[in-house]
């Protein structure tokens, strides 16, 4: 892997590991990721026995040159955005490990697991209360939003 930057080296390793041993219900679009190592799509199935059982979602990861010291930009894309109190209809996710609580020791896999677990603990499918306003006014990049993490129960 000579000639790769430390960030690319780590992404390459993460990709290999995800392809070889994908966590249950997850699949990385490896063709796309190999074309552009900084933009991944992950297909994710709603966990069994939860409100999202049987649904399929797509997560997009954008990595900057400072990854993993800088957090990746993670959003839901495609035509099925999960209806969840922490997921806006434009795909933005309010999850503290994606901004303030990001640590370079976290990975794509751990972020995906956190998101599945966030979906799984949901008791009622609904959009965030400020969805309409947020979607109209927010920056394209969810990392530019100053999130207020006021409820970690779901």
């Amino acid at each position, binding site marked *: 892997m000579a000639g790769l930057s*430390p960030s690319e*080296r*780590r992404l390459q*390793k*993460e990709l290999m590991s995800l392809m070889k041993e994908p966590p249950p219900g997850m699949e990385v679009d490896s063709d796309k990721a190999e074309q552009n190592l900084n933009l991944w799509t992950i297909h994710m199935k709603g966990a069994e026995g939860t409100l999202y059982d049987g649904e399929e979602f797509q997560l997009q990861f954008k990595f900057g040159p*400072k990854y*993993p*010291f*800088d957090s990746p930009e993670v959003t839901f894309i495609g035509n099925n955005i999960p209806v969840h109190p922490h997921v806006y209809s434009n795909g933005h996710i309010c999850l503290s*490990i994606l901004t303030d*609580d990001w*640590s*370079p*020791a*976290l*990975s794509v*896999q*751990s972020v995906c*697991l956190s998101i599945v677990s966030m979906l799984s603990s949901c008791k009622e499918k609904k959009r965030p209360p400020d969805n309409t306003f947020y979607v109209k006014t927010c920056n394209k990049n969810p990392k530019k939003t100053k999130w207020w993490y006021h409820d970690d129960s779901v």
Partner: protein
Amino acid sequence: MDSDEDMETFEVDSGNESSSDDIGFNIEDQNQNPKDRQNDIEEFVFNVLSTEEIVQHMIDCIKEVNIIVEIPATTTRILLNHFKWDKEKLMERYYDGDQEQLFAEARVINPLASRSSQQPSTSSSMSSKAKVSRRCPPNSEECEICFTLIPSNLMTGLECNHRFCTQCWCEYLTTKIMAEGMGQTIACAAHGCNILVDDATVMRLVRDPKVRLKYQHLITNSFVECNRLLRWCPSPDCNNAVKVQHVEAHPVTCKCGHRFCFACGENWHDPVRCSLLKRWIKKCDDDSETSNWIAANTKECPKCNVTIEKDGGCNHMVCKNQSCKTEFCWVCLGSWEPHGSSWYSCNRFNEEEAKEARGAQERSRAALQRYLFYCNRYMNHMQSLKFENKLYASVKEKMEEMQHHCMSWIEVQFLKKAVDILCQCRQTLMYTYVFAYYLRKNNQSTIFEDNQRDLEAATEKLSEYLERDITNENLANIKQQVQDKYRYCDLRRKKLLEHVHEGYEKESWEYMD
């Protein structure tokens, strides 16, 4: 007190030229000596510290505590920072409270607990640790940041035992310092671990001098900012801090020459107190008076709500908004139609309601006028103070010119002294108007206003005198007069301040809310 009469007596008094001013100069010169850092005017002791001295002071504070608590200096430093560098408070909690809790609150691992008993405080990765160790050959570990096998001697971590390779640590710290501007509060790189990275570790792992310098700045800044006994000199481009023995609203003078109030950092503002000055500055900065003006001088069109200022005597208003053009009565804001041409009065309205509305407007108007009165005078002295600072330059020229004639250096210093006093008087006067704005009328406030008037009159005379042309013939005469005037100003200023201070002690000042 009649100021002119006072002047007369003073002139008679100072008939023989005393040398007291010269002595005054010697004292001042000593204070300007850079070696003499201690300023003992009025027994308020303070030191001016350069950046290097601040760092040294920080080290001394740590040492002082360390002699007693005997824990690693880096831990002491984090504890001290947690207590905003209040040594007594730290000691109290250290010996009287729950130490485990204290260390947890300050986000350090208890250095007294034996290392062997420690487990990583939180699991740092979601992938299983067992898998990592299984794959690792002896004497190497996988770094959970770069996912690379690294020889164990290149892996490092804090007391929480979360280990990463030195290169990743360096990258992590650099990002925190340079991109996020964090210094004292950088946590361990492991997810969910809040243990703080100490300064020695940062300096060991970061080699780039630019990053190290920024880090030093950040921690020095947080040391000064959270330490009650320290304050940065507010003057732009000055890197000194002032250190005091106890916090008090007192003037301090930085080595750069800037004089300010230690308690609030504003220019020295005697006689008004910090809290009122703060309110005043806020009032001047925000738009409260703009809205007061709008309330006092305008009404809204009853139809389109556009704001209208009345500029003539006639009460028959026609809204100038081209899409509105409604006609209404300024007095009652009702439609103009029923007012008709034959009778003009708005008595068809509830008298009480009308009175209330008028009363509210009147109060707004009065409040605005009152504010403008004090604000104008405050601003005026501020402006004059700026001009007087220019006066120093012209006075310097005059002093040189005089020395070419018959006077010695020491003999011409009275001019500089006069400008010094003039500036002091302007500054005091400026803040007397802030004080007066909040002051409720009583007997003492009347005396205060008399003192203010006398000082103002004397100050204006001195100012006028200093702007005069000084020619060779009247030199001796002028010196006499200038000296008399500035001595009188200084006296009036001191009397005014004394009276206000006495009022503080006797609690005779009552304020408007």
